[in-house]
């Protein structure tokens, strides 16, 4: 059985905490709860937000109150969530999807590739080699539409954030901050070290599933040439 605690987040949400640390084990619990909510959405639920160690479930408090016979909405919703969580098993998890993301490293797209190499005492080619040979897990999506919080990057290519964030980072840029790597789905300001860009759109607002990645996916980065990049970008549009 899963250990968990329930906490209010305002009058219309309950935060389910499934662990205290970022780990694959906690991530699996988060995944099995969200897979369950996806497959059997309770009628009182509006939506949910999964994160590293939590799943926050939103509801309409007045509707909950009217269903509850006078109980306070939070207590009522907790009484409905408890049996759901207690019956969860990891069998509820979906098969992880493996997503290959082509990246054109360095040059104009990756102005900080040399810095990352120098910082770690290796060559830019080695940074590319290390970055693209790893297997990465998407722990959660947040910060911006489709922005993946990714775990699994090698220490060999870790690099600190820039002292002064850039005001504009073009969409689809791949970066490194500390022990993390990530991809900016839309143009935003940010302090990451930029090492390359992917021609693949991560945010597709008109699609039914509007983001390329979702929590639980595994990522592999594949180095491509500038020519391949442009070819890919053309066929994407």
């Amino acid at each position, binding site marked *: 059985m899963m250990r968990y605690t329930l*906490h*209010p*987040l*305002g*009058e*219309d*949400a309950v*935060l389910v905490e499934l662990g205290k*640390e*970022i780990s694959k084990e906690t991530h699996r619990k988060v995944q099995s709860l*969200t897979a369950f909510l996806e497959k059997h959405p309770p009628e009182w639920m*509006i*939506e*949910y*937000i*999964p*994160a*590293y*160690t*939590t799943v*926050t479930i*939103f509801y309409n*408090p*007045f509707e909950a*109150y009217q269903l509850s016979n006078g109980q*306070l*909405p*939070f207590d009522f919703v907790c009484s409905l969530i408890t049996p759901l969580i207690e019956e969860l098993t990891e069998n509820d998890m979906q098969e992880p999807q493996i997503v290959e993301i082509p990246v054109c490293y360095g040059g104009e797209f990756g102005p900080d590739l040399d810095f990352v190499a120098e910082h770690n005492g290796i060559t830019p080619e080695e940074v590319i080699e290390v970055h693209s040979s790893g297997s990465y897990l998407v722990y*959660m*999506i*947040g*910060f*911006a*539409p*489709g*922005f993946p*919080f990714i775990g699994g990057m090698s220490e060999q290519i870790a690099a600190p954030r820039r002292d002064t964030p850039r005001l504009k980072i073009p969409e689809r840029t791949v970066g490194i901050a500390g022990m993390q790597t990530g991809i900016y*789905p*839309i143009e935003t300001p940010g302090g990451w070290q930029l090492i390359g860009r992917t021609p693949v759109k991560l*945010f597709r*607002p*008109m699609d039914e*599933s*509007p*983001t390329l990645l*979702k*929590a639980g996916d595994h990522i592999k980065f594949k180095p491509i040439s500038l020519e391949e990049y442009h070819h890919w970008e053309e066929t994407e549009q």
Partner: protein
Amino acid sequence: MINVLKPGLLSSIQDLGRTGYQKYGVISSGAMDPFSHRMANLLAGNKENDPVLEITMMGPMLTFKEDTLISICGGDLSPSINGQPVRTWRSVLVKKGSELKFGQCRKGCRAYLAAAGGFSVPEVMNSKSTYLRAGLGGYKGRALKSGDLLETGKPSLQSLKITEYLTKQILDRTFVENDWGIASELIPDTAANPEIRITRGRQFDLFSEASKVQLFKHAFEVTSQSDRMGYRLKGPALALSEHAEQISEAVNFGSIQVPPDGNPIVLLADRQTTGGYPKIGQVAAVDLPLLAQAKPGDSLSFSEISNEQAQQLLIKREMKLKELKQGIFLKTRGGN
């Protein structure tokens, strides 16, 4: 159809928010003052979630290309039609060719203009709200500009009944207000420098004893770096009792988070879906309108209530709204 002569400072189409997509990192958006948004729709005979125009500080100048039933709720931005002041929190029938403009910000800073049938904009990801930063939803994904033309949808039966009643009274005037509106006891008192009720945030206990006291003792100023995403407040610096890294988790409308510089940020309609700063408090849902109507330079003070009280206040307000809706329905069914 409504013609935008001048757009105002920031006028955007909003409904009650984009739900179902926060798990993809897509922000909720929606009205900053959802209560006024809902009231404006009810008075125009619309569904509560219909898209309305959110008007900020300096309002737009609009001309009506046809007779239109409207209502303006929220902050008092001195609306006038053809130079004559028009009342807020009421249904108003406006004659074709009339010009609506706004003036001084007398109370609050955001007004909600609903038109019968709602504004016709395409639905994007389950909502008609404008997501300004991503350029999505609402009217062409952006705030209004001069020359824009706003179409309205098909009016409901309720809208038609209110229109019919007001048509009988308009005679040769350019607009007519209904003889009833939202009772003043239901309208949030959006005085400057409001007192906002909050509950303890999930990381409240991690803050130093001094910070916990100061949160409720001192006023916090709404700084000019405040927008639809959040209000950055300035006051006594708040600090954790010892440094602790937070793990990113969901945030909500009204969550008060404290970054390392100690100046709290209250997250609002355009907040990110998740955040990694510790949350010291959570604004009670019933006081979100007071917050949304506060403007840069105003100061906020916080008082603590329990989670139970916050829920009870919300239930009480929703009960009153339910009565109000029934009242409006009965009034309009009988001809008015």
